[in-house]
């Protein structure tokens, strides 16, 4: 089959030329106001996801997950990453990302061990926004230990397991600097965002979508 090239007329493209409308600042201000109006439900959503994870861990038999359970762990952890990132719960965000790395690594290696997941879920319970936050040094210690777990299984994410600790100390610069290199390596800077060590995509509107700078 030869390639067909289409030039569809899309309504969104006309949005720029249509009269009226709003500026970027007006749109963002209104959106932020709307989002803040429902922010109270966020903590309950996080708690529900953590409870679902705890239920999954409790249902494990003989220390081994079924693959479908591990997929469910990944789904729930993904939800926590989203919500923790949205409301900037840094320790919970790091712990849930580490759980994603772990669950994904276990699935990729065909290892269905429950122990590394269980320890992450316990940590996430400690970081739950419904409870008093641990002292900063305790948080650092917990995240360091989680880093050791991922390092033991060699599930360290991009940037290394050290991101768990660095997240607490807000040392994000290195990750921001690394991210474009990885992006270009993986997908050629085509406007897609591969996984970054930190959730920077939402706060780097000037860099993404990509500029017209040659790769």
């Amino acid at each position, binding site marked *: *089959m030869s*390639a067909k*090239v*289409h*030039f*569809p*007329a*899309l*309504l*969104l*493209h006309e*949005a*720029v030329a*249509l*009269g*009226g*409308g*709003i*500026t*970027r600042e007006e*749109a*963002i*201000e*209104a*959106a*932020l106001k*709307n*989002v803040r109006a*429902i922010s109270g*439900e966020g903590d309950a*959503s996080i708690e529900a996801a953590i409870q679902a994870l705890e239920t999954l861990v409790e249902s494990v038999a003989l220390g081994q997950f079924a693959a479908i359970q591990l997929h469910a762990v*990944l789904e729930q952890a*993904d*939800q926590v*990453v*989203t*919500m923790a*990132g*949205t409301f900037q719960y840094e320790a919970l965000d790091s712990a849930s*990302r580490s759980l*994603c790395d772990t669950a*994904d690594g276990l699935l990729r290696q065909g290892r269905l061990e429950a122990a590394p997941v269980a320890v992450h879920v316990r940590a996430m319970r400690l970081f739950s926004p419904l409870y008093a936050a641990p002292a900063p040094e305790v948080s650092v210690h917990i995240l360091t230990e989680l880093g050791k777990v991922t390092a033991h299984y060699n599930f360290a994410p991009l940037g290394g397991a050290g991101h768990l600790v660095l997240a607490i100390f807000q040392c994000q610069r290195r990750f921001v600097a690394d991210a474009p290199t990885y992006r270009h390596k*993986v*997908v050629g800077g*085509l*406007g*897609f*965002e*591969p*996984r*970054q060590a930190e*959730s920077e*995509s*939402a*706060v*780097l*509107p000037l860099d*993404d*979508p990509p500029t017209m700078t*040659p790769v």
Partner: protein
Amino acid sequence: MAQPRMNLSKLNVLVVDRNHYYRALISQALRGFEIKHITSCETASAAKEYLTNSDFDLCLIEAELPDMSGADLVRFIRRLKKEPLRFVLIIVLSSYAQAGMVSAARDAGANLVLKKPTSPQALFDHIAWLARTKRPYIELDSYIGPDRKFHDIDPPDGHYKRAKDPSEAGSANVRSGALEESATQ
């Protein structure tokens, strides 16, 4: 100088995400952009039903849905018979955005992949970028989606192909003299 304005009020947007709270967050942000027609659902099967019965101008699809992957839903949309619906602008959202997931979404024909959590700023900027960047759509057996080569700029240093690729030597498909020079050296 007056800031450029965008009128998004006529857009019909579909939001597909398994988390009801995140669907609400995204919908609230879209309402702030003055988008009035927002449909949201949890599963790909519900999305398919909406897509069969309605037209949409923008789809925000989570990468991992309960009943199928976001990439599979994107592929389904790109293979619909309805036009221009099958060329609808699609943004895939993911928290745990591994490179493999990003590649899968791109290969399925998504216009953009956006990492969660998505701030209203990032969401607006990406939508505005899609509005400003008209990309043709390529239809092949293996791929239906936006043209991936949309940069309207020359490669660096005037080299249009790899100078050392032997298959390129003497090729007539040379857009500048740079390659001919390198081939004869």
